C-alpha cells in the first residue's frame, strides 16, 4: 500500500499507476460544484488577481492546494463548542467538475483529485501534463471515511451551504484507489469500452 503525504511531489505522483490503492495523509480541501465554479470565476479567469473581497480566501486556498489535494465531497458536519467535526464524508460524483477540473489542477498545481465515478478526457490530459492523479474513494462509505478526517481546520464560503463550502481538513490514512494516473490511463475509460462491447453482444442475442 502506497502512502501519500501532502504536499505531494511530482515524482511521487509519476510513480503511481492506475489500479493502485493508496493511503493519504495531511491537509486537504473539499470542493464541489459551487466551489469549482467560484474558483474558475474568481481565480482562474482573473489570472490570479481575484476581487479584493476574495483575496484572503485565495491565499488560504493556495497554501492548501499547491502540491495538494481537492476532495469532491459535501459532508455532514456537526458543531459542538465552536468546533466543527465531520460526521459523514464520502465522495460525490466527480464528472460534474469535468468542465472546470483541468484548469483548477493547472492553476493551483494540484497533485490529486479525490471523488467517485471518474472524470473525462480533459482532466485525464491535465493529469498527464501537470503531474496529477484521480483517486477514487468508495461512494457511500461516509461514516467510515469520516473517521479518517481527524480535524476540521477551517471552512470557507459557508454561504454556499454546508455541502458546497470549502472545508479544510486533516486526514489520516484516507483510503482510495488510483483510477486515473499521470500516464494517460483511465480505468473508467477502459471499463466503458469493455462494458459497451458486452452490451452490444447482449443486444445481439
Amino acid at each position, binding site marked *: 500500500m502506497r502512502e501519500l503525504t501532502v504536499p505531494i511531489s511530482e515524482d511521487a505522483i509519476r510513480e503511481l499507476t492506475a*489500479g493502485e490503492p493508496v493511503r493519504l495523509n495531511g491537509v486537504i480541501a473539499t470542493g464541489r460544484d*459551487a466551489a469549482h465554479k467560484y474558483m474558475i470565476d474568481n481565480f482562474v479567469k482573473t489570472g490570479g488577481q481575484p476581487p479584493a473581497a476574495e483575496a484572503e480566501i485565495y491565499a488560504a486556498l493556495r497554501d492548501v492546494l499547491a502540491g495538494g489535494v481537492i476532495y469532491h465531497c459535501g459532508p455532514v458536519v456537526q458543531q459542538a463548542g465552536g468546533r466543527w467535526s465531520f*460526521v459523514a464524508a*464520502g465522495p460525490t460524483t466527480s464528472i460534474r467538475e469535468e468542465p472546470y477540473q483541468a484548469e483548477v489542477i493547472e492553476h493551483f498545481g494540484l497533485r490529486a483529485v479525490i471523488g*467517485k465515478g471518474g472524470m473525462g478526457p480533459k482532466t485525464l490530459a491535465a493529469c498527464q501534463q501537470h503531474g496529477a492523479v484521480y483517486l477514487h474513494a468508495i461512494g457511500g462509505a461516509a461514516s467510515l471515511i469520516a473517521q479518517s478526517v481527524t480535524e476540521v481546520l477551517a471552512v470557507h464560503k459557508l454561504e454556499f451551504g*454546508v455541502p458546497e463550502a470549502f472545508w479544510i481538513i486533516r486526514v489520516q490514512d484516507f483510503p482510495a484507489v488510483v483510477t486515473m494516473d499521470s500516464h494517460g490511463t483511465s480505468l*473508467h475509460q477502459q*471499463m466503458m469500452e469493455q*462494458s459497451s462491447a458486452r452490451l452490444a453482444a447482449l443486444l445481439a442475442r
Partner: protein
Amino acid sequence: MTDLTDAFVELIRRAATQLPADMQRALSEAKGREEPGSAAEGALDTILQNVELARANSTPICQDTGTPIFDVYYPVGVSTRRLAEQIRAACAIATERAYLRPNAVDSLTGQNSGDNTGIDFPTLHFHEWDEDGIKVDLLLKGGGCENVSTQYKLPNSELGAGRDLEGVRRVVLDAVNRAQGLGCAPGVLGVAVGGDRGSSYVKSKQQLLRPLDDTNPEPELAALEDRLLDEGNELGIGPMGFGGETTLLGVKVSTLHRLPASYFVSVAYMCWANRRATMRVVGEEVSYA
C-alpha cells in the same frame, strides 16, 4: 390525532443510518462472489464495514442523505395538511441532529435552506386507504444515482427497442451501461413501463421500496426482472465501476396504463445504499420496519 413529529424524526434516523437487512445481506453475498483481493471485493468490504459503523454510531450511511420521499397511507378523517407540517418539522430536527445533510437548495437563488425544507421539499405522496392506522414509507434517494436515472421513449431505433418487453429489456440494459459506476453500483433498478412522463418516474421510484427477494405477481414481469438482473451483471461494471461480478442487486418492474401515443420506460437507479424504512401508527402505538 397525536403529534407524530418525534416519530417521523425516528423514522428518518432509521432510514439514514440503518441499511435494510435485505440490502445488507445482498451486499454480503455479492462480496463472496468477487475475486479475493480484487478492487471489487475491497469496495464491498469497505461498504459493509461502513454499514455496520453507521448503524452502531447512528451516523448517516452516506453523506448524501438524498431527497426524502414520503409515501403516507392514512385513513379517512386524518389531516394530511397536519401530517405534512409534522414531516417538515421532523426533517428540520433530523438535520439539526446530523441524521440528514442540509440538502434543499433554492433553484433560483442557490441558497441552501439549511433544514431540508423548501418548495416541494421533502417529497410527499398521500394515499387514503381503508385501514385504521397510518403507514409511512420513507425512501432517501441520493443525488448521484438520481443523476443516472433516466427515461426512454419507445420505439428507440438506435437500440432496436420496440414497444414490447424486449424493447424494455434493451433500454434498461443501455441505462445500466450508461450509469457505469456513477450511481454507486451495485445498484437496484426500479423500472416503470407506461404512464405519462411524470407518473412513470414516480412509479419507477416506488419499485425501490419492494423487498429484494419478493416475486412479481405478473409472471412475464417476474421473468424480465430475473433476466435483467443476470444480464445487467454480465456487463461486468462491478462495484463502484471497478469491474466485477455484481453490478446490480435487484431489478423491480411495474406497469401503468399509457396513452396510445406514448410508451415510456422510466429507470430509477438506486445506489447500494437503498435507504428505506417504514413506520406504522395504530392508535398511540408506533412501530418501525
